């Protein structure tokens, strides 16, 4: 495993920066059940990082630790060179971490454009008084963000469903709207929880393309959980493997694929 502390050059030639987020010896318990045991890894600026593992490996719990929804009993989370204290999820969102959800968590009562606009909430600062007048600065702000959201909608090719209530959209499109919403937050770090679960091959290809484009065009750092090994191996720069809450391996896709423990625990089971 090569030393990558100061950044490295990815296989496709992209330059990956220094450490953005570091998980140090994370242990997470629910009552008596241990979900994660002593897991440590880091995420670099501009990287596409994957967390994989069989069902119940603690992947989603890990993601929830990263975005502060769960607070680990032991271990530290370092973000951008500082130890992150335990803070409510909305403050973590303010730090520039956005995510999508395994079981889509869109706002069902709202349309696509409204859902995407929710990603801009944090950036809208005009106070209540302007809001209730909806004039001047408040309206300008609304228009400005609306424009940005329309760009994201164009980028993800979902213009046609702009004004459709999201509850009535097919699954694949809902996933895409959710990605749009996360992108609207202009995150530094984007967490994707099984972005391709339940999709057909074509949809998976589309989604992979979007993920690469996002990383490429906006330079967004991406951490994703995925079940589909082939997808992960194509997309990710580095992979961390969990099993039963424990860390089995961490490295490039090639390294991980050759790791005997991983083959035994995960690949061996799958194939």
């Amino acid at each position, binding site marked *: 495993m090569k030393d990558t502390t100061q950044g490295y050059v990815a296989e496709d030639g992209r330059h990956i920066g220094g450490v953005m987020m570091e998980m140090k010896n994370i242990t997470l318990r629910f009552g008596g059940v241990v979900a994660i045991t002593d897991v440590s890894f880091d995420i670099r600026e501009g990287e596409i990082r994957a967390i994989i593992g069989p069902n119940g490996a603690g992947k989603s719990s890990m993601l929830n630790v990263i975005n502060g929804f769960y607070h680990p009993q032991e271990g530290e989370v370092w973000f951008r060179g500082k130890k992150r204290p335990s803070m409510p*999820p909305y403050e973590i969102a303010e730090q520039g971490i956005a995510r999508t959800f395994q079981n889509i968590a*869109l706002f069902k009562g709202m349309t696509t454009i409204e859902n995407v606009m929710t990603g801009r909430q944090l950036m809208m600062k005009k106070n209540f008084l302007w809001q209730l007048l909806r004039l001047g600065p408040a309206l300008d702000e609304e*228009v400005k963000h609306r424009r940005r959201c329309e760009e994201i909608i164009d980028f993800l090719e979902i213009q046609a469903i702009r004004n459709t209530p999201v509850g009535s959209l097919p699954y694949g499109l809902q996933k895409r709207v959710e990605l749009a919403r996360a992108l609207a937050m202009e995150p530094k770090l984007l967490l994707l929880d099984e972005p391709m679960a339940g999709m057909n091959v074509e949809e998976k290809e589309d989604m992979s393309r979007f993920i690469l484009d996002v990383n490429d065009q906006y330079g967004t750092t991406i951490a994703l959980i995925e079940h589909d090994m082939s997808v992960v191996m194509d997309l990710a720069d580095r992979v961390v493997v969990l099993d039963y809450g424990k860390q089995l391996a961490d490295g490039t896709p090639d390294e991980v694929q050759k790791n005997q423990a991983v083959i035994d625990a995960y690949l061996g089971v799958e194939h």
Partner: protein
Amino acid sequence: MFYREAGQFKTSYKQYMQAFPIREDRIGIAIWLAIALFYVPFFGLPGLEYTFAMNAIMIPVVIFTITAIGLNILVGFTGQISLGTGAFMGVGAYACYKLTTYFPDVNIIIIILASGFVSAAVGAMFGLPSLRIKGFYLVVATLAAQFFLEWCFIRVEWLYNYNPSGAIEVPQREVFGLIVTGAAAEPATRYLMVLGFLILLTIIAGNLVRGRVGRGWMMIRDMDIAAELIGVRPLRTKLSAFAVSSYYCGVSGALMVFVWLGAAEVESFDVNHSFLYLFMVIFGGLGSITGSYMGAAFIWTFPILMKEMGKRLFDIDPIIMENVSLVAIGALIVFILIKEPHGLARLWQLVKQKLRIWPFAH
């Protein structure tokens, strides 16, 4: 045929984001507004005796529409059930009474607007538990507010100026030389005053729900955990919903007593009234301002209509009709929840959608 958006191109997002992007809708609203402003105050409702139309139908409907919009902000837009509406209206009414006793020379419109803030503060206070309590548990919290406030309205004699009858009796107040409260006020004056409040508060509610604040409410309603992870502060958002909602209820409560009833005891703010207002919101449509108009108008006029229909057409005893309309409203609530959980507003939308493509089937 006449209801088309084809050919109406939007050249800016501002246009796109209008409350009523379709021209025919705007014309429709203008016609309604013209009727409400220029026809009703002078002629009442067609076919009804003027003061009956004004005092028993139009004025209360306008006031309850404000209540319904307020409650809808909480229940329909933010997803927090409240059974404390009656009491929050009471807070507005008692606050208005106290303020106008202390400042008899201040314009009553300003007093009413100010008393809404008292109600908003009380509402936000009782909204505090909503951070930890969700769903049906919150129902209990709002019932606690309802019953505790009812007790205060009786026990804190200061609230009704130690009046031995335990009621607040509205003093006469004038605005620009016109009597607006008390029995001597003309129905038209009173109607136009409450209508003015309604228009103002509708515009504000419309602005709020279409902007950042409203989106925050709906995010909490649709999926509170996701909302929080996106950066919505749950406490601030829920409290703002409680406060804004209670503000509307408070203003409508003050208007109800000052402009409509003229005097009120605690009975006018009891829990049964809270149910009535909830019915207006359910029936009109959760999360719809247009629906609040429809719901308030329907729930208020329906029993009156039933009573008169029964009496005039079939010679049925009004007592029976009273019970029949209770049953009918209950049944209609269940019916509309089964057929269209989003109420009359959604039905109206469907009709419009049909119109949009009429005369073609699809």
